[in-house]
């Protein structure tokens, strides 16, 4: 890497080399049994240069073709965006525990057994269910050096477990599932099985809701599929800079219900989205986004922050091998006062949304969402009575989050990226047939 940096400095004013090396192994289960074991070794090398004031960028998969890498970065720098920032010099990072050698050391046999046990717990409840499952481990080494003397290096371990069950009766299909991830090994299947079994229990009886305005409780998974995609876009400093965020000019203003607080946090120990610094070498920190309903901050990388005349929040992310861009690390919504049971008890006729399909296809920027309730339950006189189907809900994230009846008292992680309690919304437009 030092060699690439040295050669790049000869043809540019500033340069940065970023490398991720990863080893992952996963046991994959189909139709209730182990079907496939996969191992993936990968290296990703990215070079970013500033030449005549402009950004050049190239990536490759190995150190064999350094010449080509530099040539490609130089070619793109002819057109690249003018660089408005300086690469960060050597700085100190918070110590965040994200590596557990026990992940790498977990034998395949244990991963196989965990998957089998998980499937057995679920098929013991519903014998005719067919499960797909995945138990995976990954170790990732990240290294960054730049021509300002900046350096960062860390190792991360990730253990993940996911299960998806399908129950088919004629052309009636029910899909249930749950996934978990951690930087420590996951050894017990019970917690995950409990979530899936509860979904199966609640979905046992069919129920239907009328077309019209109904109160709706979003479970953590429901909130993740319906409400979060719009917030991710709206708090992105780039969207704000372009004037396309509906809350871009609302900094310091109360836009959301006072019961809502939201922040980005890459500093929680042993969470898969935690890290000591972002992909540009800027130190990690917790960034409040909504404080009691008030818009508190937006998320920035170096370039976007410089253009917006502010500072990077340490959210430069190279997802998919692209140039760094602002992106949340992990979003947390603060729990409130009301239990999920009390929310349900409060509703005479309404809907619980566990999973919404297609919500991310709507007008994300404007906050409009609309989707088919893939998994959801009808509430009647304070009780869940069964599963709804052929039901579509639509609304606007900003209208929903402006006035909530209650925020749940227990937050849960959904997919490693979001931790949220259930959200109780007084009315939402429901169409069913």
């Amino acid at each position, binding site marked *: 890497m030092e060699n690439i940096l040295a050669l790049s400095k000869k043809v540019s004013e500033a340069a940065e080399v970023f490398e991720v090396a990863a080893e992952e192994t996963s046991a994959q289960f*189909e139709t209730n049994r*182990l*079907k*496939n*074991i*996969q191992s*993936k*070794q*990968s*290296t990703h090398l990215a070079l970013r240069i500033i030449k005549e004031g402009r950004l*050049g*960028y*190239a*990536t490759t*998969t*190995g150190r*064999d073709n350094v010449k*080509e890498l530099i040539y*490609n970065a130089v*070619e*793109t720098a*002819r*057109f*690249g*965006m003018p660089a408005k920032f300086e690469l960060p010099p050597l700085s100190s990072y918070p110590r965040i525990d994200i590596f557990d050698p026990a992940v790498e050391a977990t034998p*395949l046999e244990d991963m*196989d057994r965990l998957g089998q046990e998980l499937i057995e717990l679920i098929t013991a409840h519903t014998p*005719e269910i*067919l499960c797909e499952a995945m138990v995976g481990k990954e170790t990732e080494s990240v290294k960054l050096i730049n021509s300002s003397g900046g350096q960062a290096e860390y190792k991360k371990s990730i253990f993940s477990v996911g299960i998806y069950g*399908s129950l*088919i*009766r*004629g052309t*009636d*299909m029910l*899909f249930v599932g749950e996934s978990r991830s951690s930087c420590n090994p996951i050894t017990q299947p019970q917690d995950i099985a409990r979530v899936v079994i509860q979904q199966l229990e609640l979905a046992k009886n069919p129920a239907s809701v009328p*077309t019209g305005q109904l109160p709706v409780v979003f479970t953590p998974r429901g909130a993740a599929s319906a409400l979060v995609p719009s917030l991710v876009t709206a708090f992105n400093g780039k969207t704000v800079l*372009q*004037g*396309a965020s*509906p809350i871009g000019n609302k900094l310091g203003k109360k836009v959301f219900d006072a019961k809502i607080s939201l922040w980005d946090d890459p500093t929680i120990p042993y969470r898969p989205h935690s890290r000591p610094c972002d992909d540009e070498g800027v130190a990690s920190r917790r960034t409040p986004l909504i404080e009691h309903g008030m818009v508190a901050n937006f998320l920035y990388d170096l370039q976007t922050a410089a253009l917006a005349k502010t500072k990077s929040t340490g959210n430069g992310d190279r997802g998919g091998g*692209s*140039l760094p861009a602002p992106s949340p690390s992990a979003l947390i919504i603060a729990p409130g006062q009301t239990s999920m049971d009390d929310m349900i008890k409060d509703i005479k006729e309404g809907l619980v949304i566990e999973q919404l*399909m*297609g919500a*991310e*296809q*709507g007008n994300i*920027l*404007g906050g409009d969402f*609309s*989707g*088919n309730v*893939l998994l959801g339950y009808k509430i009647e006189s304070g009780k869940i009575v069964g599963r709804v189907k*052929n039901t*579509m809900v*639509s609304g606007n994230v900003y209208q929903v989050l402006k006035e909530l009846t209650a925020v749940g008292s227990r937050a849960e992680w959904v997919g490693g990226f979001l931790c949220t309690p259930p959200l109780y919304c007084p009315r939402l*437009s429901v*169409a069913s*047939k």
Partner: protein
Amino acid sequence: MPDIETAAARLAGALKKYKADYIEARLERSQRSHITYRGKELESAGRSTAVGGNIRALVKGGWGFVSFNDLNDLPRRIELAVKQATLVGKEESRLAPVQPVVDTVTSKEDGPLNIPLAEKKKLLDEYNQIIWGTPGLRTSVIGYADSHQQTIFLSSTGSYIRQPRTDITLRLSAVAAGDGDVQQANLSLGSRGDFSPMRRLHKEVEEMANKAVAMLSAPQVKGGEYTVVLDPVLAGVFVHEAFGHLSESDFVYEDDRLRQVMVLGKKFGPKELNIIDSAAVPGLRGSYKYDDEGVPATKTYLIKEGKLVGRLHSRETAAKMGEKPTGNARAMNYRYPPIVRMTNTYIEPGQASFNDIIAGIKEGVYAKNWFGGTTSMEMFTFSAGEAYMIRNGKIAEALRPVVLTGNVFTTLNNIDAIAGDLDMNQGGGCGKGGQFPLPVSNGSPHIRISRCLVGGG
């Protein structure tokens, strides 16, 4: 490190020496470039190269898969794949037999590689100027990407196939903003390597920008059931989401209940309905000569005269269902094993004209252009980029984008008119099993669906 040709030559004789029922290797070298604009400025331009490969082994019905960037020490990778497969395998290995193929496929379509980045950028500048010539716009995004892959496929049964693949995508969107409200319009297209379709979009780009602004003053549709007319682009997304995924046999082959639902001969739609998937049609984004298991591409009727007559297979699903392989096992790149995927999927044209189709509709929705789509097998949703009310047989006021949803098994039966104007949409990308976006195309003539659930976008 050896290049992919040298590495392949070393593997050629070696694959059959291991204790496995079947082993294959795929080696790949690729080059990509991309240019992105956000707002008036170019945001990012980049180039990337990758070299990698994988080994897949089958032992007693269990698979082991190993992918890597480092082409040194391939025997160790093969041993690992075999070891993993051995740990999994407790049944019998079954693969539909295919003739080993030794072939070098060549293509004229390395077009985008020979066009300098500067020329691509100049074209995108023109489009961005058109977008920004439209009053009322807040921002815009343009994403251009091209890639060229060279793959070598080898198997323990003696296949040795060299195949290139070129893919180009261009997606533009214009975002208009009013009083606390944001609306966007999109245009997306792709090609199997021919750059020229990217050059002729000036008029479409202008229309797109105007649409985004017009949508701000458009009303939202009242959610409910409507008679819906889909344009060829959206009907193509509909056939992909609402039926295509269900015809992928890996969902079906080991699931007895689903096999009963998907039994051949079952009526799915009206007599006029024919649905085809074919990688063998040349020149489309889902086209190829051999799939990623070395099986030649075919043309497969999925629905003929309204009845289920076929499905898409890998070698394993075909063997287990006692059917012929269709050459539909595809992998996005060397990091993934091949799984059953669609290629170019379309509804065959019928007889009606567009005017015939809308003539009898008192109140309905005309939904155009693609925004997205997804399926759960039983349920599907897909969203239109543009929508209009149909009133008394005529296209009436513009609406905000709509989302359509329904049940696969009833909605196909509710298709009650098919026009003759088949058109293929090359702008999409398909996601399945973590592999996204895989180049596919889909298409249809205009179709009419009675009783479709519509929600406001």
